[in-house]
């Protein structure tokens, strides 16, 4: 009887904490959205920010966040894919692999501020990329890379070994097996993982303060030549992202509506992260169904 009482109490406690966590998240989301949603309108989402007047928007910041994400992914995905494939398919269990694993683990728990400072030192100054999208993207890639490697490795390891053996038994080269047999099977979890990782990068600020900078030049959204200074897609221009904007507005911001802007921007940021989560799940499922379902394939 005593055991059963203990069981009841413990179960109660565990459920309580689980509910608490859901409540915390609910509270956080509710708070952010409640505070912020009133400030979000078309004008807020599209117009440029103000330096010391009220009524500024977050248009360029939003664009910067998204574009920076794209750049980051362009760098991360091929590198992370290669690294992950190495870990899953090529690495032998030896000291070197142990070392590489260590590298990946350490890299993935690096304080972001250290990466940011490193970026300032190396990309911004030494390489002369300046405060630019490129510098920011490389810094973010450094964060994202270990995550991407891990996602890829897990996705490849999750592919039944028999798939690989079937390929081998047909006399295919290992690389062909990896690209044509394993990759398609790994794709759904690869996509889900990548999008989730992207969502995480989206809100990073500490590393960007020092790399992609805290201002955005006036953008000419009719000029899409990446070599033009005012082109939105010029990778060498500086770019303040949404998360950095929140930081800036809250620290030395001189705009009278700083509270409203950061509330609105926070809400936008959180909504974006929510979207990333939803899209990741949905897209992963769609691809999975495409690859495995009894519908037409190939």
């Amino acid at each position, binding site marked *: 009887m005593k055991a059963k009482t203990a069981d009841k109490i413990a179960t109660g406690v565990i459920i309580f904490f689980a509910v608490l966590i859901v409540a915390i998240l609910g509270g956080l989301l509710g708070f952010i959205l409640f505070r912020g949603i009133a400030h979000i309108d078309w004008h807020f989402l599209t117009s440029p920010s103000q330096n010391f007047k009220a009524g500024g928007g977050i248009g360029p910041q939003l664009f910067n966040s998204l574009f920076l994400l794209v750049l980051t992914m362009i760098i991360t995905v091929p590198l992370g894919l290669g690294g992950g494939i190495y870990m899953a398919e090529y690495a032998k269990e030896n000291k070197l692999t142990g070392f590489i694993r260590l590298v990946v683990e350490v890299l993935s728990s690096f304080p972001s501020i250290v990466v940011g400072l490193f970026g300032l030192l190396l990309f911004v100054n030494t390489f002369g990329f300046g405060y630019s999208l490129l510098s920011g993207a490389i810094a973010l890639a450094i964060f994202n890379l270990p995550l991407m490697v891990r996602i890829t490795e897990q996705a490849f390891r999750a592919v039944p070994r028999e798939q690989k053996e079937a390929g081998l038994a047909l006399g295919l080269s290992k690389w062909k097996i990896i690209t044509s047999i394993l990759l398609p099977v790994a794709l759904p979890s690869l996509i889900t993982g990548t999008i989730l990782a992207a969502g995480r990068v989206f809100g990073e600020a500490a590393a960007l303060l020092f790399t992609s900078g*805290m201002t955005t030049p006036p953008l000419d959204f009719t000029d899409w030549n990446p070599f033009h200074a005012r082109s939105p897609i010029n990778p060498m221009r500086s770019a303040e992202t949404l998360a950095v904007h929140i930081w*800036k507005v*809250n*620290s030395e911001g001189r705009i009278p509506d700083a509270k409203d802007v950061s509330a609105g921007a926070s809400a936008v940021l959180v909504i974006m992260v929510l979207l990333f989560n939803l899209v990741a799940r949905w897209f992963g499922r769609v691809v999975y169904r495409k690859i495995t379902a009894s519908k037409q394939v190939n």
Partner: protein
Amino acid sequence: TTTEPAATGTTTTPAATEQPAEASVSGEILAVGSTALQPLVDQVGQEFMANNPDVVVQVQGGGSGTGLTQVSEGAANIGNSDVFAEEKLDADKAAELVDHQVAVVAMATVVNKDAGVTNLTKQQLLDVFNGTVTNWSEVGGADQKITIVNRPSSSGTRATFEKYALGEKVENVPGAIEQDSSGTVKQIVADTKGAVGYLAFSYLDDTVTALSYDGVEPTEANVQSGDYPIWAYEHMYTKGEPDGATKAFLDYFMTEEVQNADVTELGYIPVSSMEVKRDAEGKVIQ
């Protein structure tokens, strides 16, 4: 291998002190440094870009230290700073830089409205900040514990305050807090009984009490006349004499149009209106 800043623009109108002619200059200007100065430079930069479509002015924060380092290393065209370069850089490095004082920023000691004080002497203020005095009643205020809200030790605002208000550097008192943001400092002082901090004039409003210093009220007029000493220049440093777009930009900064509009709007005091001048040691020279 630091890249040279792309300030290779050319000026067609020599000494463009008036409105720069349309499309007269081109190039990229990178101004880095003081976060306090950033909104102003950013704002003026945008106006300047509107007038000069071929110029891109990039304004980055990063702090006075970063600004001075970057300009001194040639990584930026302009280093924005709240303090004289001599205070942050080695003397030989500082000597290479040319100072452009673009505004004056004045600061006031602020206390919570319930603290019951409106004026402190220099000595009293020092006692408050070095922890000798811990209750407002000791300096004629209400019976409230004093809570100090400081800026980080490397902050230019703090350096100015210590130099001109306290007369010496003070260390943190246990229980004090440091905040990097003036907005937050104001918020805390407004909300917390017994809190004291210091803010640029532009942040002052009726949520906090701005204290007189040795009996002198913190007003713009008192600053201009030199009666109220807690103020400093906002500097924009260049390495050597500026040219091209950078020069045009700095010249534009000093125009009436900027000094009497943007500068005052942001709560700074135009340099030209000052009746006194100071050098790097803080000595009044006029």
